[in-house]
């Protein structure tokens, strides 16, 4: 009987392997992808222990729970399997150690259960996940009893048989779940960490640029699950339905029909015909869809699995990606689906058609004259680079320049740069839109046309670096233009202002006692990891800084990215209202911003609320006060 437990372990492993292989056949339906297996395998422990842990640890309970239950499960199973060696299987001390490991697993199972019973938090999925604690507990308690009996030398008693039977039910249940149940996350998750589509994330943690699309590909973007690369299908299978993405998602919070967790599960369910029904929070206020039962069908459409409203509600804020412990790339998936809708089916959001056509025809989403971009600076005498050929700093104005409100921010920035004696110039009428909006709306063709044109324009001039006050432009110029041949040093205006203050070229005054809360733009904080410079500037002008509950890399979106204001999908609330509510909670008198889109979204909030001021405006105000 000492061999019964190890034999059970081998049967479990065999079953789990068989189930995983059946699943792997589905992953292989995906498109080909280049995966660096060697480096991936070598990096696996680090990716798991450092990168995954970094995210998991944000929820202390979940982190402890997972360490105990997963650690216990693996150690107990390996040890029980090793008991096949006669020298170990005969040792009562060894069985005592095995019993200890199963005991730890049992304790972990109780933690898993305690989170779900009597009531589970809304963000967790039910269904098969509710059975998981019982399977774990059965396996662990059976193993514990069996190992204890063997440690006490009581081989081949009916009690031992009962213990093994209990353990068998739990263990085989867990192994069976590897194909379609919660335990899939363990196998898929480990493989996903090895074959991650963005391995760069693990080193710099800032691999956020969208990959360019081959415009000659037979099919543009993803229409069915099979259009995703196989390692992305694998990544969607690693989802443990923890709902952290859902909690972070601004569109979900606003009651728009988007839930990133459900979206990933829809991609998974679209792969096969026999996925168990989804048992988590729905897409809020979603319209009815009529999904076809056949696997690998079209994913988007009123008659498909995902309604277009869901696809277009996303602001591409990456909060879901930031929170996902399984390192899933939701935004990449959404953009792939959008590319297909926009370019193959001509179905961008309704209001986007004219905007995209003006971007193609006039290089500007509003169809305005490029020469009008500098109109905000009337009387400021902006130097234009074509008249000089070179400058230390090329100031990229961006779309905000056409906006009256944001023009004030740019005027403040220009005055500050003048005061500091920065040698700068603008492109003037040669500056086109970066194409960020077109790209996020899935129109990669227009984006690439604009990117190439901008790279060509910039290549004609000599400048030290590019400064911009628009984080979306910053992200495009710094990260996404690289593949089109644009390699420049690109600096956000807040970083430049901090540098000028620290170099003594700007002498900030003191806005004593002004309480300010800073709203991190997604494309600066999450996409580019820059959260400190604006805060330091605020500290240097003597503002008393208070933080919102969500700030820095985990900040909440203003609702303005990804073309969401154009899609304008209906919800219960508006995202900027929610964000402004969080700012009001801090009691601050001013919300400091650093992005034209955030400025427009937050300024659009009605009612009594804090003022919205750009970092540049606050700095200039402090200097005028000091002067």
């Amino acid at each position, binding site marked *: 009987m000492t061999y019964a437990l190890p034999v059970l372990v081998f049967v479990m492993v065999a079953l789990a392997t068989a189930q995983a292989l059946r699943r792997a056949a589905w992953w292989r339906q995906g498109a080909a992808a280049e995966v660096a297996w060697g480096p991936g395998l070598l990096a696996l422990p680090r990716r798991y222990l450092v990168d995954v842990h970094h995210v998991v640890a944000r929820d202390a309970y979940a982190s402890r729970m997972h360490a105990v239950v997963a650690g216990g499960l693996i150690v107990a199973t390996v040890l029980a399997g090793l008991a096949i060696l006669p020298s170990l299987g005969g040792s009562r001390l060894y069985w005592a150690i095995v019993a200890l490991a199963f005991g730890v697993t049992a304790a972990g199972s109780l933690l898993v259960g305690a989170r779900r019973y009597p009531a589970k938090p809304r963000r967790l999925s039910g269904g098969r996940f509710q059975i998981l604690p019982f399977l774990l507990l059965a396996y662990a308690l059976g193993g514990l009893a069996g190992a204890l009996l063997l440690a006490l030398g009581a081989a081949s008693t009916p009690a031992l048989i009962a213990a093994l039977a209990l353990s068998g039910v739990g263990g085989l249940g867990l192994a069976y779940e590897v194909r379609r149940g919660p335990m899939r996350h363990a196998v898929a998750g480990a493989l996903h960490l090895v074959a991650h589509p963005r391995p760069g994330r693990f080193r710099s943690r800032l691999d956020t640029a969208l990959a360019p699309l081959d*415009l000659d590909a037979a*099919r*543009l973007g993803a229409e069915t699950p099979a259009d995703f690369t196989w390692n992305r299908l694998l990544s969607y299978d690693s989802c443990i339905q923890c709902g952290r993405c859902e909690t972070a998602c601004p569109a979900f919070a606003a009651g728009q029909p988007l839930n990133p967790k459900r979206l990933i599960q829809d991609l998974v369910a679209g792969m096969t015909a026999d996925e168990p029904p989804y048992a988590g929070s729905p897409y809020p206020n979603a319209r009815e869809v009529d999904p076809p039962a056949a696997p690998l069908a079209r994913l988007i459409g009123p008659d498909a699995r995902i309604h277009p409203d869901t696809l277009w509600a996303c602001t591409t804020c990456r909060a879901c990606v930031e929170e996902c412990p399984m390192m899933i790339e939701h935004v990449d998936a959404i953009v792939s689906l959008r590319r297909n809708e*926009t*370019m*193959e*089916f*001509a*179905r*961008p959001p309704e209001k*986007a*058609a*004219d905007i*995209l*056509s*003006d971007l*193609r*025809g*006039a*290089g*500007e989403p509003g*169809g*305005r*004259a*490029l020469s009008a971009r500098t109109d905000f600076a009337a009387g400021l005498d902006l130097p234009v680079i074509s008249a000089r050929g070179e400058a230390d700093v090329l100031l990229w104005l961006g779309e905000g320049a056409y906006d009256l409100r944001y023009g004030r921010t740019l005027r403040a920035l220009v005055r500050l740069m003048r005061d500091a004696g920065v040698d700068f110039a603008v492109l003037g009428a040669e500056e086109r839109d970066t194409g960020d909006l077109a790209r996020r709306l899935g*129109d*990669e*063709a*227009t984006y690439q046309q604009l990117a190439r044109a901008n790279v060509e324009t910039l290549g004609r001039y000599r400048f030290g670096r590019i400064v911009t006050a628009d984080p979306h432009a910053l992200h495009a110029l710094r990260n996404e233009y690289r593949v089109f041949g644009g390699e420049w040093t690109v600096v956000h205006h807040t970083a430049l202002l901090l540098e000028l203050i620290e170099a003594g070229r700007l002498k900030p005054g003191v806005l004593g006692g002004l309480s300010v809360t800073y709203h991190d733009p997604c494309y600066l904080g999450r996409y580019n990891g820059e959260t400190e410079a604006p805060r330091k500037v605020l500290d240097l002008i003597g503002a008393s800084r208070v933080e919102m509950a969500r700030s820095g890399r985990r900040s909440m979106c203003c609702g303005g990215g990804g073309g969401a204001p154009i899609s304008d999908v209906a919800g219960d609330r508006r995202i900027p209202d929610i964000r402004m509510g969080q700012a009001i909670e801090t009691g601050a008198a001013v919300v400091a911003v650093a992005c034209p889109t955030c400025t427009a979204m937050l300024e659009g909030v009605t009612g009594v609320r804090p003022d919205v001021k750009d970092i540049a405006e606050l700095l200039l105000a402090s200097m005028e006060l000091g002067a």
Partner: protein
Amino acid sequence: MKIVVLLSAGAHPVSSAPVLPRLEAQALRLALALGETTGLHAGPSAAPAADALGHGLGLLTHLATREGDDPIPALVAALKAETPDLVLAGRRGQGGEETGLAPYAVAAALGVTIVADAVALAPGAAPGSLVVEQALPKGARRRLVVRLPALVTVHPGAPAPGAYAYGVARRGRVDTIWGVAGSAAEPNPIAVEERPYRPRPKLMRSAPGTGSAAERLAAATGGMASSGANVLVQPTPDEAARAILEHLRRIGVLAPAVANKPAA
């Protein structure tokens, strides 16, 4: 129904980059919803008209004429050979070389009816007929039933154009027909001066200088007074003449009506 949409080489109204005129994209949307559609362009290059492929056009026939040629004979010859039931065009040109007269010239040469300013099209109850909803000033609409073949021009009030899609454009095809005999366009008898467009403030002749902002706005825009469009449906000639006279007096073209003078 066999439909041909006339496509021109337009220019973007602001950037003057070559684009498909918006009106023609609207015409295309109406056409695609109605029946089997092809596009027709006569000119030296197919480039901007080929954008129509991205709006769902399957086939563009490009009649390659020489630079400076009059496109009308080429278009008329092609349409005579093709014998479409319906020809659609924009109501005006959107580019340097166009006068907006092409639809009229083509219709005259083909000897077919022309209906201007359509905002909606539907097949008529009788075979070979078409129901055209026509835009009239002040938002009024008129429904006409037209016997085909006909040429219809499209008004900006028609449904907004569908989105341009790169992938859709890839699936379309341009057939270029070379060596189309053309005649050099006659030189324009009127000297034309070209100046950049400059928006001018609208003259508000009737706006009073005093009163609240709301009153002045109401006065300037016609306010409540014009809330009913002055459309007379099948008026008698007498009624119609009175309405026109009254309007001309109101806007100051004619002197105010003189009260019936007593005989001197």
